[in-house]
């Protein structure tokens, strides 16, 4: 069995996954609300909490899997990209755990984890496929010919899609995280009430920063009325984000001749996005929400396709805020 550990942002995660892709446990300790009052993730606070939680979360993942450390054959850990101080907690813990038992270690690219999340579980997607990952930290389209690697076709040039939801929610006076809040409110509104821009930089790239400015202006223009039009604003804003994601995904499917689509990242939980990608003419894999948001099962899952480092080759392994 593979023990996965992930601490690249504000969730402390550990999971146990079988070589067959079966998820034996997938524990996520979210710090989300802790950072909410700062309006974003505070790196030092995130790092401190990872250290407080990493032992307990790992022990919990083993216990829920009904496994002991003796049953672990490989340790997988996120080594980047992410917040460097946060990454280093999980990486140090994973390296020492593997070294003390002479186990092989697999350093995993966090984004690769998102890309292969749909290869886990009962109905795994099989390569080749196209993948859209949209979350609070990343938004990109990737092509997967073999599950051990992925090729980025396009990505956001400024805000991530989840960030656009968060910022929009703040402008509308809604809670954090913004995605679910806007999703809920949008159901009561008219998505065509306001026409927000769908900026289209590059062939398959995304840009969301102009959208949030457009929302700000719309709210200002409405003045007092903005409050009573909140549902329409939320619906139109969400439609603009989803349209941009779906249009790029459609273009990528056509250009690459893709036959399958997988989506991932926290924004994959959005109901309108799910509905929109279902219309793109190829079968779609949407993993359950605990595999969409940051988690360690996807890290252990990616490790199945990668060559492990033998003890002691990983002793000097470092984390990287950005991977080449």
């Amino acid at each position, binding site marked *: 069995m593979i023990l996965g550990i992930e601490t690249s942002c504000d969730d402390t995660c550990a999971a146990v996954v079988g070589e067959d892709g079966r998820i034996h446990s997938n524990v996520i300790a979210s710090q989300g609300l802790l950072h909410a009052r700062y309006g974003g993730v*505070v790196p030092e606070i995130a*790092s401190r909490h990872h*250290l407080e939680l990493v032992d307990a979360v790992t022990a919990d993942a083993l216990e829920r899997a009904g496994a002991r*450390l003796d049953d672990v054959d490989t340790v997988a850990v996120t080594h980047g990209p992410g917040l460097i101080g946060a990454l280093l907690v999980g990486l140090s813990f994973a390296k020492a755990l593997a*070294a003390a038992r002479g186990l092989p270690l697999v350093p995993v690219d966090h984004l690769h984890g998102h890309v292969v999340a749909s290869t886990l579980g009962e109905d795994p997607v099989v390569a080749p496929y196209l993948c859209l990952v949209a979350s609070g930290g990343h938004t990109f389209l990737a092509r997967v010919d073999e599950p051990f690697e992925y090729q980025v076709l396009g990505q956001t040039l400024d805000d991530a899609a989840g960030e656009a939801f968060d910022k929009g929610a703040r402008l509308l006076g809604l809670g954090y995280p913004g995605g679910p809040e806007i999703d809920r409110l949008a159901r009561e509104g008219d998505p065509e009430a306001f026409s927000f821009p769908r900026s289209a930089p590059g062939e398959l790239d995304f840009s969301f920063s102009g959208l949030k400015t457009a929302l700000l202006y719309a709210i200002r223009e409405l003045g007092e009325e903005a409050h009573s039009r909140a549902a329409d604003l939320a619906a139109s804003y969400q439609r603009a984000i989803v349209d941009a994601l779906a249009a790029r995904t459609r273009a990528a499917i056509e250009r690459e001749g893709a036959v399958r689509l997988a989506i991932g990242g926290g924004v994959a939980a959005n109901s309108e996005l799910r509905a929109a990608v279902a219309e793109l003419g190829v079968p779609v894999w949407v993993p359950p929400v605990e595999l969409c948001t940051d988690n360690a099962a996807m890290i252990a899952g990616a490790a199945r396709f990668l060559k492990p480092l033998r003890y002691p080759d990983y*002793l*000097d392994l470092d984390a990287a805020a950005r991977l080449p």
Partner: protein
Amino acid sequence: MTLLGLDTSTAASSACVLRADGEAFDVTPPPDRLAGPPRHASELMPAVASAMELAEVRWVDLEAIAVGVGPGTFTGLRIGIATARALATANELPLRRVSSLAALAAGIRENASAGLALPLIDARRGEVFAALYDGPEAVWPPFAAQPEALVTRLREGGFKPLAAGDGSLRFRGMLQEAGIPVEPDGSEAHVVSALHVCRLGLGMPDEPPGAVLPEYLREPDAKPQQ
């Protein structure tokens, strides 16, 4: 008892195995390592592995792991403590927490048998982490201060301790002007030695690995990532 000790409170990563027969195998870098950028992730585990190898000790031979909990560089402390905890958990060993300033003071005492020791760890932002030791006794428990305030506090107390540590190297001029002697630049007393972490660890209680946290002595900066 046989124990492994490690410290990552400064830019240096140090590890040592103190065997039950009293032999010590210390992999603590020289003082010039203090001036370089910290690289605990790439240096600590290799240091641990070489100390184990030199001592010809296997994991099952260890009875406890002692870890320097700072104060010091936050990221470094987390790497050291996360490493110590995982090594302990994987081998079902207890952890023992040791003050990095106490370990530094123990090194100063070796060079100045009598008198007071002033271990200083660079706290960045123009501050030092400091403590004052008379033998093994902490006259002043660890605190963070600007060097000017530290010098005033020493003068008011009438203390003239021997200072060492990367904090004393950074503020050598100011300390010496105030009549506080500082160890020479090349002195090994500037580095938190893992051997002293081991020795102090011998006298500390066992703790469950998950309970050991850094001694930060400073609130986190509440600035979100942008």
